């Protein structure tokens, strides 16, 4: 009887701890989403409660004159998609080459890992002067090149770990049958790596979408992204809490959807293939 009760208490505590942890971790996102639907007066007078919900924050953020949040969203979409496409085009052949032929031996993979771990400010300082000379400041292309390069380690290591899982026999028998290496790469390896390419693109897209430092340094107006746009809001419209909350909610929605899609693959991406999911 006592053992049974002990078991019940243990189960209860486990549930309690799990639910508490979940509530704490999810609270910021949920609270800001709620805030974005509260009218101005309610935010000021009643920070804890909810009396009325409205869509006006969203409408005003998306249509405010002189402050084009829609433009930031468009910029983020162009830059993140552009970088994802370019990164995959460069990373897929490179990942295959490094995984199969150990191209560049340890030097290349060491360099790629360093790029993932070095503070990006190291490159931002000289690149700013170079970008000024090359006319790439405040352009979509400029940010696409930066994002492609600095998120490349993630993309390559995810693809390498997927290519490494493919059975070698498939490629070998095709080679024996007279297919060229390029045919093997495009007709056999590519379709088999599709799930990996999807995972890699989602992770790459999220990394671009969430980037802040380069976007802050290398854009002024034309190529400004949502992270910088939302942070400008807080200084420009100090009191409009609901607007800021709406801008944040709009900006985090795509990445929250994406993370649900790639949950299992996340481990490979987060640890640069040092651990499998």
């Amino acid at each position: 009887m006592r053992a049974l009760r002990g078991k019940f208490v243990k189960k209860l505590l486990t549930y309690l701890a799990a639910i508490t942890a979940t509530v704490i971790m999810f609270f910021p996102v949920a609270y800001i989403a709620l805030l974005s639907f509260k009218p101005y007066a309610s935010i000021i007078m009643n920070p804890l409660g909810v009396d009325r919900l409205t869509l006006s924050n969203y409408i005003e953020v998306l249509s405010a004159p002189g402050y084009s949040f829609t433009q930031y969203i468009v910029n983020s979409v162009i830059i993140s998609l552009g970088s994802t496409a370019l990164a995959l085009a460069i990373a897929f052949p490179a990942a295959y080459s490094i995984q199969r032929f150990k191209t560049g031996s340890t030097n290349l993979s060491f360099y790629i890992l360093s790029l993932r771990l070095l503070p990006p400010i190291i490159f931002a300082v000289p690149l700013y002067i170079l970008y000024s000379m090359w006319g790439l400041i405040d352009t979509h292309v400029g940010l696409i090149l930066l994002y492609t390069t600095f998120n490349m380690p993630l993309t390559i290591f995810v693809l390498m770990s997927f290519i490494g899982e493919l059975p070698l026999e498939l490629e070998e028998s095709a080679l024996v049958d007279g297919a060229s290496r390029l045919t093997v790469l495009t007709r056999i390896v590519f379709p088999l790596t599709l799930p990996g390419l999807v995972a890699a693109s989602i992770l790459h897209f999220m990394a671009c979408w969430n980037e802040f430092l380069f976007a802050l340094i290398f854009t002024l107006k034309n190529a400004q992204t949502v992270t910088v746009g939302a942070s400008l809001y807080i200084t420009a419209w100090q009191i409009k809490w609901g607007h800021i909350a709406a801008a944040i909610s709009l900006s985090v929605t795509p990445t929250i959807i994406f993370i649900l899609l790639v949950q299992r693959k996340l481990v490979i991406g987060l640890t640069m293939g040092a651990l499998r999911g």
Partner: protein
Amino acid sequence: MVTFLFSSLLEDRYLKWLLVLPLIILLLVITIFPTLYAYYMSVHRITIETFRSPVFIGLKNFLMVLLSGEFWYSLIFTIIFMISATSIELALGLALALLFRSNIRGKSIMIALILTPLAVAPALYGLMFRLMLDPITGVIPAMFKLIGVNISPLSTLTSTVISLIVIDALQYTPFVFLILFAALHALPLEPVEAALVDGASSWQIIRYVTLPLIKPAVIVATIFRFMDSFKTFDTIYVITGGGPGISTSTVTINVYKQTFLMGNFGTGAAATLILFYLSMMAITVIYKVMYRKGESSER
């Protein structure tokens, strides 16, 4: 002749280089060339107006950085921040991973919700807390008031630093959790069963069986949290801007302000080179731990 050249290019020993060529060009232009250019910048006086006619000043920029209290302060602040945040994240992440190994209903939904902070851009996560910590409209001071505590977390330096560490912990505990949870999931059942048969308590099992088995995952999670919190910029920049004064400036915030707000590009380049060498020392060790060790244990 041309076809011959082309077909021999498609032989594996040339093709493998052809396949990494675009990558190497990109790395050369966007990373290696700028690093070399940073050496040139570091021995010149360069501002954004005069970058076309820099003046050679020798090692003055390096002296400026090494003799400035601000650089060292930000380095020490970053290291304190890094160690405190990473330790909290490891402890909580491990606890959560062990907790979620037990059979509970609704586990997958709870895990999905716990992972949401990882999806949020650090800059936006910081903004969220700026709203929530606001002394008048913020929900966190309001909740404290409800239990009779009048506190404004961003009013003193100590409470600000603690808040920044807690915010980092809230965002990245899920990172450690996810890595350790996956590692626990992949563990074989036999060692635990054998320990149970031998009459070990659940604490003994965790301490002497589970933990040693997931040690590689713990090391990897620690390395990534260490290196990533060393780079911290976004969250702190949007919450405090590195201030008041320089009191919450990380190294990146310090170099950013020196270079892009005050316009000392030469000094900025010298600082980044010092950072580069400091980081490379750490990365060389990390590479050996992470990949060499992994290879030898697989054999």
